[in-house]
């Protein structure tokens, strides 16, 4: 199998493609920290998928007789002010975290990619106007802008996602534009243009595929930032609303018990930290494989 993948004379296109993927994987797997990151993310995904099986209690059931219990055999991470099991809430919270990250990761880069490639390929006034808009968004501190949007839209997990997506696309537009500028004058683009391809076809079919790998790296590196922003909004009471077990919101409610019952606020924060670290390690590793020139 290994030989079939690594052969110098692949018999088919699929074999060549798989071989290249395998080569990339080998380079990635040599990076031990990146593998740790990948491990964390795989665990997170498993945890989200199997949440009802892994959790020992319901994340919502209140048990006022057992409120604010310290970590023990019955409640591994203790209980919160309503007697809810913190471990089970963190496990179920992984679903919310993944939900936020995935929704932002499929919207913001697509918008950025379109704006960036159109701007870079067409140039001229389109470029000036689009980049001016991008600069304005970049000129705002991200969290403050997200705060203002949530203020206008109203608190809630959906609006938090929209606000984060609105504030996240400009860097992608910049990257995509820079990549487009480097390839738009290359011979193969001219060849396609001479064959009569329209700008839409060139951008969608030939420019965008070449921009994706550096964008994927950037998105992975940004995921930690998305998680932190979402948790920050949750902490301020503007993201996911109670009783949803969102990690940032859990920290916020645990704040008032911090000095006596430390586990209520600190353990969800640890979860945020570990997951963000996982995404950062994974992103660093991916960058080394996919985008060696910026490493």
């Amino acid at each position: 199998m290994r030989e079939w993948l690594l052969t110098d004379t692949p018999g088919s296109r699929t074999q060549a493609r798989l071989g290249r993927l395998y080569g990339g994987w080998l380079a990635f797997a040599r990076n031990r920290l990146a593998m740790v990151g990948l491990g964390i993310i795989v665990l997170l995904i498993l945890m989200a998928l199997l949440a009802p099986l892994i959790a020992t209690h319901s994340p919502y059931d209140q048990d006022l007789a057992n409120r604010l219990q310290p970590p023990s055999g019955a409640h591994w991470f203790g209980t919160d002010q309503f007697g809810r099991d913190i471990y089970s809430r963190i496990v179920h919270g992984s679903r919310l975290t993944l939900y936020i990250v995935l929704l932002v990761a499929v919207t913001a880069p697509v918008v950025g990619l379109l704006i960036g490639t159109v701007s870079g390929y067409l140039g001229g006034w389109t470029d000036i106007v689009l980049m001016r808009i991008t600069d304005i968004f970049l000129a705002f501190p991200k969290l403050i802008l997200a705060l203002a949007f949530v203020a206008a839209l109203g608190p809630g997990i959906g609006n938090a996602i929209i606000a984060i997506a609105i504030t996240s696309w400009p860097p992608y537009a910049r990257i995509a534009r820079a990549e487009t500028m480097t390839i738009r004058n290359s011979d193969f683009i001219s060849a396609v243009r001479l064959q009569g391809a329209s700008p839409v076809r060139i951008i969608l079919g030939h420019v965008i595929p070449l921009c994706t790998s550096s964008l994927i790296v950037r998105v992975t590196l940004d995921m930690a930032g998305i998680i932190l922003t979402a948790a920050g909004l949750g902490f301020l009471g503007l993201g996911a609303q109670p009783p949803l077990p969102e990690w940032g919101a859990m920290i916020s409610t645990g704040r008032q018990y911090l000095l006596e019952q430390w586990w209520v606020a600190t353990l969800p924060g640890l979860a945020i930290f570990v997951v963000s670290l996982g995404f950062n390690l994974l992103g660093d590793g991916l960058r080394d494989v996919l985008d060696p020139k910026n490493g």
Partner: protein
Amino acid sequence: MTDIIKAGGDTAARRPRRPAGLPRRIAGLLVSVAMTLLGLLLVTFLIGRVVPIDPVLAAVGDRANAETYERMRHELGLDLPLWQQFGLYVADVARGDLGTSVLTSRPVLEDVARVFPATLELATAAVIIGVILGVPAGVMAAVNRGRWPDHLVRVLGLVGYSVPVFWLGLVGLLLFYAKLDWVPGPGRLDVFYDGLVDPMTGILTVDALLAGETEIFWNALSHLILPASILGYFSIAYISRMTRSFMLDQLRQEYITTARVKGMSEARVIWRHALGNIAVPLITVVALSYATLLEGSVLTETVFAWPGLGQYITNSLLSADMNAVLGGTLVVGAVFIGLNLLSDLLYRVLDPRARR
């Protein structure tokens, strides 16, 4: 944070095609900054327009009849086309009128001026910590590449990019306030000292010194140290990483070899020659890090009950006080743009190559 680097770096790298004089380029820069500021106003204006709260209803109350409602709507200028409303908004802001806060029933600008010094104090203390510890750490990492100082800086950076600032603040309070009792709790002063110093600059440590109240100064400083260190940690992580990469670039160059061959001491080569050459880009990094600290202060202030701009914005948000939220956002955005501009200008003025 890398976004900002990107933005700042791009403006610095965008050279005009024809060599133009410094005044002309600065004029061009100012025009672009003015455009950005106008865009900022447009964004806050549009956000203010999508709010589901009806400003007319808020002003007249829901018992008013249709006639009163229409008159108020006219008085507030809400019956004008959107672009005219935007023009009025820009004119108001230019006059320093950011509206009145519903929560405090004072002009927003007055409120912001009152709370801003607290944020300034926190961010400045944090950036000082960041420079004092971050620059040497970055230099040591570059000099000892691949050994433990290098790994330390790497880990600092990774943790800095992964840890939620508000959580770190809570853990800091738990550890240093509740368990070890090294620092006082949240707030800017012990209740006992509250209101004993006349606010002159609004920066309590400075005010206390000006008034000659050393006891209050130490108390204010002890309250400042934990939040500033938490915020400063993120600054250290960032500054040390940038210093490391700038230093690595310098140490590779031939003048370093020449200096060593001439028999110059290693300390002098590193701290005088190499560090001297990265001073200009470092200033840019520090200015940008200062700007991001403003952002971090929103969450830190909430954790430490620090009565600054961040806390003002979040409190107004929770009570749907849109004038205050948008005014605060505008001020933060303007300061952010100002710091970017400042770092850009400093770069051009201090670096002889950019001046040419």
